[in-house]
Each structure stands twice: as C-alpha cells, then as structure tokens.
C-alpha cells in the first residue's frame, strides 16, 4: 500500500495543529484589530465599543490597534496597555474581581456547601439501622391485640 495518503494525512494534521496552536490563529492584523476594538469601550461615549463608535477617540484607537498589530504586538499586551492607560473600565467585559467574584462565586459556594450538607445528611440516614419488626415484636403486638379482643 502506498504511503502517500498517510503522508498527506500527517501534513494535514500538522498544519491543523500549527493553525490551532498559533497564538493569533493566523488572523490578519486588520481582523485582530477589529476583534479587539469590539472588546474595548469607546472612552468618550456611553456603552459603545470602539468598533461601533465614530468619535475621534474611537478612530484613533482603531488606528492605534491596527498599527500595533502590524508592529507584531500581541492581543494581551495591547489589551493590558489600554487597561494601564484607561483602567479596567475600558474593557466592555472586565476581568473578574472584587464584587464580580462575589456575584458569580457566591451562588457556586452556596451550591457546594448545600451539596456537602446534603451528602452528609444522606450518609447519616444510611448509617441509621433499618427499623424492622423482630419476632419478639410481632409476638408482643399479637398478645396485645388478643388481650384487647378478650377485654370486656
């Protein structure tokens, strides 16, 4: 059997792995700039991303992102640079922290504690002896019934 199909398969797998493992997924600078612009909040407008805004700041940021990506900077470095300059609020979806951790973490904590309590309770119930009537119990009940029937 020819080895050619196996070699071809190996090449395809290798290319796919390189593509997947490449930090920026092989995207162009323009695509990366557009994606990051969608993550950043327009500094001088309310609730709009840099990608969606037409203010001079948004124009300047889009141009800056494109220039930085073309210069080879990474997404994380650029994102961090903007956080350093504007604060976390420049991110439309800020990193978890502070009250955010409380809001998201508290229900999980309550669930874990509740599940733990339930598991302990179930374990305890399992350990409790089964309540079955013994022969002596049955005889006692039978005697009591007989006495009741015999009573005037």
């Amino acid at each position, binding site marked *: 059997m020819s080895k050619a199909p196996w070699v071809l398969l190996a090449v395809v797998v290798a290319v796919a792995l390189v593509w997947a493992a490449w930090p920026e997924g092989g995207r162009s600078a323009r695509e990366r700039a557009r994606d990051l612009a969608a993550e950043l909040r327009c*500094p*001088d407008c309310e609730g709009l991303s840099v990608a969606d805004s037409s203010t*001079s*700041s948004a*124009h*300047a*940021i889009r*141009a*800056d992102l494109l220039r930085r990506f073309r210069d080879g900077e990474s997404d994380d470095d650029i994102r961090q640079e903007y956080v*350093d*300059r*504007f*604060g*976390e*609020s420049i991110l439309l979806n*800020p990193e978890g922290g*502070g*009250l955010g*951790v*409380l809001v998201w*973490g*508290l229900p999980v*904590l*309550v669930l874990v*504690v*509740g599940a*733990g*309590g339930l598991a*302990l*309770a179930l374990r*305890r119930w399992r350990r409790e002896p089964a309540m079955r009537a013994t022969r002596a119990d049955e005889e006692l009940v039978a005697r009591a019934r007989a006495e009741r029937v015999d009573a005037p």
Partner: protein
Amino acid sequence: MRHPTRWIALGVAVVVVVVGVVLATQVGDDPRAETQRSQLVGHAAPSFSVKPLEGGTLTRADLAGRTVIVNFWNTWCAPCRAELPDLKRFWARHRDDPSVAFVGIVRDDGESAVREYVAAEAIDWTIARDPAARAALDFGTRGQPETFAISPEGVIAGAQIGPSSVRDLEVMLDAARGEPR
C-alpha cells in the same frame, strides 16, 4: 464533627465571612469612579507631538525641564468654555514664569474654528492641534476638558477630568513642582 448541622453552620459562617471580607475590601471602590481619575498620575507623561497654531511641531522633549500644564479642550465644548475664565486667571499669574508652560491641545476641532475662537477670546498660551487624536489617546483622555500637570522630570503629577478651577490648577502645579500644599 458528628452532627451535620454543625457542618451546615460552619458552611454558613464561611459564606458570611467571605461576603463580609469582599464587601469590606470593596467599600468605596465604585467601578465608575475609575473613569473620574487618570490612571497615568505618577507615571511618565506620554511623548506627545502636537501642531501649534503658529506652526511647527511641539513635543514633550521641547518642554523638558519645565513644569507643563496640558489642557485638552474643544471650542464647541460647553464645560471647556466654562473653565476658560479660570484658565485665563491661572495663566495671568504664571505667564511670566519661564519654568511653567501651558499647552492647550485641541482634541478634534477644525483649525479655522480654533483660530477664530482663540483670537476672539485672546487666549495667549500655546494652542496646538492633535492630528489623529494621538496625544488625546496617549494621555488616556475620555473627553474634554481634561488637564494634566507634568513635572520638570516628565512625570504626570496631577490630572483633572472635567473643568478646572484656578485652585485645581494651582494644586496640580504645586504637585508637579514637588511643593507640598
């Protein structure tokens, strides 16, 4: 602990403590407050390059060794117009001091509108345009007016988001000069 109720009580106590600690550390930490202060105070000022109305290019390097007040503004901005009298009073006190420079950087106005406004208001500090809003971006501005005080060593010593009073400007100037108030 043999009794599940004790475990549950412990769990509740842990939750209460966690909530208490998080709330205690977050008191006064309003995320929106972040937008009311510059992140750059205490850091090196950006190496801006702007275009003065009188021509040429003005960079931070040109102002090295001087205390610099940088004011971002626009002619159409009402709060900028509101702070103008204070800017004038402040500059009247310091215009003869060669160790102080005052630069008004126009964020995104047309040149003719700026020239007209500067002439009408007799503004006598350096007014410069900011091509492609590069300086405004590098200073992390969120709008106008925003004012920064840069020390002679090139560090941002103070920032004011919104209109500045004479007192605000003097406080920033003193901070930039390293003079306690």
